[in-house]
């Protein structure tokens, strides 16, 4: 319990601190839990997004995520964008809890705005955004109140590609191909095979094709995925997030499947 009435927010501060005894610049701007002794914390994700995939290629970084936000096994929201541009050279893709991700989107937009309003020509690149997210995620896990996400951060900084991962524990790493969630098991081996030998040899079209291939494999195997997805690219020209596109899939093989349920032959 905070015993400084001036910190309670409304009713108006003046009622409790008529003579301004509390120095202006020390006054905290927001208190969220003044009257709350018991606080609710995230114990599990509720509305979730599945895998995010990303690779480095010749001109930069490419990232893909489908448009589904699930409520358990229910395909609840089918038009959700899980790729978020931060400034002009960074893309963040999120799996895990979508409300936590939306909170992070707001925070990221705020720091981009702050950076812009400083008006001194400095801006945040992907490395700074990733470090910032890693510190935030780690701080929240340390309060036992995690932001339930696994995030990929990609972009271009000083002409160099950047791609890194951060999750709800604050664990970080970077590599030339990354995937979160189910994708780390199913798509990442394919991505590594195609990308790791030489990312510089992959053209934009080839990169797009690699991601499409992996999104299709995921759609066949991941029950929480959708055949509608978006691709984001970051090059020296900037960030672009594509319109939602449909996966072409072929379920003909399903007819021939035998050997379970009532179809014994």
């Amino acid at each position, binding site marked *: 319990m905070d015993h400084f009435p001036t910190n309670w927010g409304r009713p108006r501060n003046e009622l409790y601190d008529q003579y301004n005894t509390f120095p202006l610049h020390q006054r905290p701007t927001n208190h969220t839990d003044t009257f709350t002794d018991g606080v609710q914390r995230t114990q599990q994700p509720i509305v979730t997004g599945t895998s995010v995939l990303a690779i480095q290629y010749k001109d930069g970084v490419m990232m893909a995520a489908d448009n589904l936000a699930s409520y358990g096994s229910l395909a609840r929201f089918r038009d959700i964008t899980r790729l978020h541009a931060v400034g002009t050279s960074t893309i963040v893709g999120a799996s895990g809890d979508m409300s936590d991700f939306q909170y992070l989107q707001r925070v990221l937009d705020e720091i981009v705005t702050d950076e812009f309003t400083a008006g001194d020509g400095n801006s945040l690149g992907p490395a*700074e955004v990733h470090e*910032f997210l890693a510190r935030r995620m780690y701080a929240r896990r340390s309060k036992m109140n995690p932001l339930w996400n696994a995030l990929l951060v990609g972009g271009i900084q000083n002409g160099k590609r950047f791609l890194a991962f951060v999750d709800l524990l604050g664990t970080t790493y970077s590599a030339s191909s990354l995937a979160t969630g189910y994708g780390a098991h199913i798509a990442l081996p394919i991505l590594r095979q195609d990308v790791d030998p030489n990312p510089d040899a992959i053209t934009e079209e080839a990169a797009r094709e690699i991601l499409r291939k992996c999104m299709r494999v995921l759609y066949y195997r991941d029950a929480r995925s959708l055949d509608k997805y978006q691709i984001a690219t970051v090059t020296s020209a900037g960030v672009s997030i594509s319109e939602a596109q449909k996966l072409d899939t072929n379920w003909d093989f399903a007819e021939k499947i035998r050997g379970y349920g009532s179809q014994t032959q």
Partner: protein
Amino acid sequence: MFRNTYDSDNVVFSPQGRLHQVEYASEAVKQGSAVVGLRSKTHSILLALKRSLGELAAYQQKMYRIDDHVGIGIAGLTSDARVLSNFMRQQAMGSRMQFNRPIPVNRLVSSIADKAQVNTQEYGRRPYGVGFLVIGQDKNGPHLYEFSPSGNSYEYYAMSIGARSQSAKTYLEKHYESFIDCSLEDLIRHGLHALRETLQQDKELTISNTTIGIVGPAGAHEKDVPPEGGFRILENEPIQVYLSRMQPKRAPEEPAAAEQTGAANEPEEGATHGSTADEDVQMGE
């Protein structure tokens, strides 16, 4: 004795629209020994004159390292400088912790300027009695800033603060156009010449009373400077080489003449402190 009260706190303007407490704080800066700062395309440097309380005392520290890429030279109350430099170090480390990036120099200077501003407006506070010259480098190259107790900060090609800094300023104004293309060695020589102007008649720059701070690539006489060329302080023996390359002192009448012409070119300092038309203040005895 009558003494009007417009200077007794910092929340009341004088009828002339001035904040006397803030101006007095600027006077404290002038009590400190001089610091000179110069900038070229590749380097920013600081030169300071250290004072010692007497034969038995050590020389007062005039420069502080803030981060790999930033350092400051101070004039005024050393204790206030310690508080502010500590704050700057915290800001610099905060930036490295949160974004893993060296803090942009202008933001660092603005952050202490904002702190100083609070002290010029809130009741029961006093302005800082210290001024800084801040040098640093970031992606836009080397920088030189001045910070003053009034809460202002400006960027300069060359600047000096502290006791008799006007003489140094006169020198800098005469030569600043050549600084931008100077080598580090020439820049230091100019700095030492400017700093020498602030000395009393019978004093000399020596290796014990002079400090040099540098950001930028290693100079011809430096060794063990990391490739990024971060902030370093030169004192004692290593600065002998620079002192011995100085031109001998000019004839005594010349600097005096220069001092007069220089004073006219200082609107900021002249307007705030130099004026004798200050009628609503009589300083107590």
